[in-house]
């Protein structure tokens, strides 16, 4: 359940602000009309099925172990009765110890069998459970990697993390605890029902009358707790989203003394989550009380009815006594099981969330019949490309553009003119709403991810560094490139000097998000990474903004060499970077208003000439 009560929703809007759509942070499967909820249920069942399928044999084996275990558990009281009834008279009457020895041997066997069963079961079930989780984790991770950037922007990293941490944790808890109890209790119910039917069908029938009550109780719990646990999955995700984000931005929190407000907001989410989590458990408490009550009710009814039967001479006292003992053994495990139901419900909700992710349509999908490019020239073409992020705001109304292979083209224009959008379309973060973007005549949508990324690499604005060493971060450009090539790449972009000066050089750990380095240094590392990737088409989106003049100078020089034989799209507000381009495109509201060689445009006296003059002035 993802609908928040109106009051709470309001409270969130006040500080969280209004998102573009209410569905922003959900997978499309999570819309909450009744049909979708049902659909989600069935999807999560299918997912569970697909998780279990590869382990069918192992699970059958586990069930076998549990059957044997159940059998030995049943055997223990029988052996006791048999021993008391037969071994004692044999010794007393005939001095014959053979029966007793037989019993002793039987007990030894039962103990050993129990030992083997429990040991095998725990070891095997851990292997199966962990293997299932391992497969699921990988599936979910890969799915998130496949999903488009726009999905991620909507869904947020916190939620991605929540699905892969706390939801997985819920499922792990289920696989680790109590599946055996569930099966054993099931077996137990069946066995004891049979035994009771054999002992006294009429009394058994009376006992079985409580079944409908139990089913009603179970259905009630199932219904209410499904809602509660779904909501709990949601509140914990919100909590995680907030936690991840505010810990990521802890510098800003501290610098702006935001701690108190931050704590308040977190406390709000924490409390929401606390009540949401508690709700399911409270319902479970009601169910557990109910189950106990039903058990006692059954005892009372059997006692009255059975007592009456005994008085009527229809049944023996011994039979009634035995029957009541079995009844206790019938209800006790069920009472234990109620608690496991909690875990089960929680895991089911988590599974629903995960199946929602796995079923999410990949907006930027791999082609079914990919085409390949053998000798890429790097010619890019936009044919009547239309694009918008939101229905009402067209960013590119219909762009026609041809960038010949090897050309370096700079994009200039005000914020919102569509520069970054063009870059994102070329690197296929998004697909155009209409028209085509093609590389050497092949629609980007017909290229495999591999081919596309081998040929087109973009350096984004964010200069993202991964947890690891500097060398590892550069190496991402071309995994497997040796240390020499990494150093070479760093030298070309002018990063070698500062890296070399670090205490452990290329093996210096950059710390979380590259916190060890300055923004300019991070930018140089990212540059080296892209250089190492050596693509046909290189896109630089504000890739030099944090560099100081000496570094930029080095980068400019490097760019001249790097870009000489490849296609490049440069977005930069520093005209020093723009001027290395062969061609400048001035954009306004997604349309090309000027197009030509930089010098040409300066002479032409249009928008670019004005910008250039301003820049010249700023240098003085």
């Amino acid at each position: 359940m993802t609908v928040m009560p109106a009051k709470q929703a309001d409270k969130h809007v006040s500080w969280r602000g209004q998102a573009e759509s209410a569905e922003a942070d959900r997978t499309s499967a999570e819309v909450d009309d009744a049909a979708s909820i049902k659909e989600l249920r069935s999807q999560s069942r299918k997912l569970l099925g697909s998780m279990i399928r590869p382990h069918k044999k192992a699970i059958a084996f586990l069930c076998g172990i549990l059957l044997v275990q159940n059998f030995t558990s049943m055997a223990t009281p029988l052996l006791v009765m048999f021993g008391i009834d037969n071994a004692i008279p044999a010794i007393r009457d005939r001095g014959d110890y053979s029966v007793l020895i037989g019993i002793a041997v039987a007990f030894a066997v039962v103990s050993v069998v129990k030992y083997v069963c429990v040991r095998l079961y725990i070891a095997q079930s851990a292997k199966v459970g962990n293997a299932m989780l391992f497969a699921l984790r990988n599936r979910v991770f890969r799915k998130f990697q496949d999903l488009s950037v726009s999905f991620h922007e909507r869904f947020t990293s916190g939620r991605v993390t929540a699905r892969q941490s706390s939801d997985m944790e819920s499922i792990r808890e289920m696989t680790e605890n109590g599946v055996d109890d569930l099966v054993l209790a099931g077996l137990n119910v069946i066995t004891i029902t049979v035994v009771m039917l054999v002992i006294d069908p009429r009394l058994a029938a009376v006992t079985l009358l409580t079944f409908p009550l139990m089913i009603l109780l179970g259905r009630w719990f199932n219904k209410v707790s499904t809602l509660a646990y779904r909501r709990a999955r949601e509140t914990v995700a919100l909590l995680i989203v907030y936690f991840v984000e505010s810990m990521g931005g802890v510098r800003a929190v501290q610098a702006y003394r935001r701690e108190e407000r931050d704590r308040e907001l977190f406390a709000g989410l924490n409390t929401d989550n606390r009540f949401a989590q508690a709700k399911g458990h409270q319902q479970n408490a009601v169910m557990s009380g109910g189950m106990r009550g039903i058990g006692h009710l059954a005892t009372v009814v059997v006692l009255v009815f059975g007592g009456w039967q005994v008085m009527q001479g229809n049944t023996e006292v011994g039979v009634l006594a035995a029957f009541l003992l079995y009844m206790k053994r019938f209800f006790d495990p069920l009472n234990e099981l109620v608690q496991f139901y909690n875990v089960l419900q929680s895991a089911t909700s988590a599974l629903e969330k995960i199946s929602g992710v796995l079923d999410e349509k990949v907006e930027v999908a791999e082609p079914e019949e990919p085409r390949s490019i053998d000798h890429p020239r790097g010619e890019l073409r936009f044919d009547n490309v239309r694009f918008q992020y939101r229905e009402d705001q067209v960013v590119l109304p219909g762009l026609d553009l041809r960038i010949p292979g090897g050309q370096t083209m700079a994009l200039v224009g005000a914020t919102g003119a569509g520069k970054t959008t063009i870059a994102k379309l070329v690197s296929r973060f998004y697909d155009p709403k209409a028209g085509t973007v093609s590389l050497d005549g092949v629609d980007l949508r017909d290229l495999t991810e591999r081919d596309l990324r081998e040929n087109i690499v973009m350096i984004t604005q964010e200069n993202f560094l991964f947890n690891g060493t500097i060398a590892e971060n550069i190496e991402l450009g071309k995994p497997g490139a040796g240390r020499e090539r990494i150093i070479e790449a760093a030298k070309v972009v002018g990063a070698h000097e500062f890296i070399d000066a670090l205490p452990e050089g290329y093996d210096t750990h950059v710390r979380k998000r590259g916190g060890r380095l300055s923004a300019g240094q991070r930018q140089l590392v990212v540059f080296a990474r892209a250089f190492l990737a050596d693509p046909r088409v290189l896109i630089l989106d504000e890739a030099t903004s944090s560099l100081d003049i000496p570094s930029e100078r080095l980068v400019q020089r490097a760019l001249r060499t790097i870009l000489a034989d490849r296609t490049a799209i440069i977005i930069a507000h520093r005209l020093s970077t723009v001027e290395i381009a062969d061609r400048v495109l001035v954009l306004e509201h997604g349309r090309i208003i000027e197009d030509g060689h930089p010098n040409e445009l300066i002479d032409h006296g249009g928008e670019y000439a004005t910008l250039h003059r301003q820049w010249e002035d700023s240098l003085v």
Partner: protein
Amino acid sequence: MGSERLKTPELSETDDLEPQRSAPARTTALTNLWRIKKYLYPYRFRLALLWTMVLLNIASGLAIPPLVGRAIDGPIADRDMRGLWIIVGFIALLGAADAILQLSRRYMQTTTAMAIEADMRAGLYEHLQRLHTGFHDRWQTGQLLARVTSDLGMIRRFFAGGLVFAITSIGMILIIMGQLVFIEWRLALIVAASAVPLFLIGRKFFKGYLPAARSEQDQSGEVSSAAEESALGIRAIKALGRGPLMAARFEKEAAELRDRGINKSLIASRSWSGYDAIATAAIGAVLVFGSVMVAEGRMTVGDLTAFVMLQLALLWPIEASGWVMAHGNEAMTAADRVYEVFDTEPAIKDRPGAKAIDRSEVRGELVFEDVRFGYEDDSRDILRGVDLRVKPGETVAIAGKTGSGKSTLVSLPSRLNDPTGGRILLDGTDIRDLRLANLRSVVTTAFEEATLFSMSVRENLALGRPDADEADLEAALRVAQAEFVHDLPYGLDTRIGEQGLSLSGGQRQRLALARAVVVRPAVLVLDDPLSALDVHTEELVERALAQVLRETTALVVVHRPSTVALADRVALLHEGRIAAFGKHSELMAQSPEYVDVLSAEFERSTVEEVSA
């Protein structure tokens, strides 16, 4: 090269903040679990009531079977229907009481446990907020997240489930043992003797399971970290097409987690399996000796039957104790992991006797005296004795090459880092003698990389001054040329940040600048605040910013000659010291290093060189 691993590194040994990778000693783990009592204290009355209910619940559960026995032996055997009704009436009443007790105590148990968990989470969060940025740079968010979610969950589950269960089991075991001794003490000795191997197995279990659980939980944090990082870095990953590589790396982490999980369970499998078997064997032994005793006339059949029946009732609690112990172990490891964070002292905090300062009385003189700074793991300092005096109301620009320590230097006045040597004085007082909260309201820092939160524009703007009114916000937006926010779908109420509209780098930077301006601090520290702006916007911002800077002391990191215009004087940071300090024109004439770093000529010459 170690390309296959991008995980928490083994930093140098001096690095005391690095998450421990070793298992805790058993005693410290227990102590840490015990330390949670601080969070239980506010709930002591509720917990006392809860435990009373638990005990009553056990009593009510145990009272019913004897009554059933009485009913069979009494009224039913005597064919006394009226008597039967009376006893059954009692049973029904007791049963109802038992059910209600069960319901209400479990209700209370779970509600209280959730409340305690939430309190601990809030406490942990508050502590994390206070920890210095150095800590946060080193700890992966996933590891922190695991502590705040799954570890606290484990502790809660133990207190709400395992512990109650353990105590009920122990209670049952004791009661049954008492009954056994009462029936036949010699046979009870056999049962008691079986406790010896149980104890030995349990001890061994603790030794092996604790580190195994710890290593699994640590790895689970690594997996979360990998998931988080790959989500945050999705653009970088996609831009390079490294999805498959990341997936392969993730798979490695996940496989490690799987293996550690299996390893943990294997340890459990080796010990728990003994529990049931030993208890069953003890029943066998009692049966054998008991039968002999009965045959020899030293015991009645009824007593032996009763004895063995009671022993059968012991099976379940003993069997379950393995499970309870595992839970207990996991809770101990979890507590240990949680207290690892709690025990990390914030490196930057108020000194005893720290003074409060009043914003209105601050003149804003900022003096750096022989300030040094170096990372713990680097013997070479980044700052090697910075001396700098910023007069009240003056704007000083900091220039220097990439990596010269500019960003480090400007993180010091608001104490986001503390110098490792020397001191910084604000109006003559060492800033470490001022209250931290106070200091940060006087000194405001805007970082180069704007951190925006997934909140409304308004909330982001008013970050440093929650009481700012509409006019303050508008004024700040004007200064930063960030009026574009009015064109967003919901104006100032639009959600931005990762979760909402994605803004361009320039837009983010302008918002961050506006945010700093809103605070109206006595000392404004700006780390390259205009790097992502285009020339036109930069000019407009500079003009407006000049007004703001006139009223405050300011430190501004600059990369561009254009930004230098904001400053009264410029300090050149070179090799960890202020190599030159003066007016831009003076430095251009006197300092070749300065010319190298900041000469417009170079920027222009670059262009000419390149376009030539």
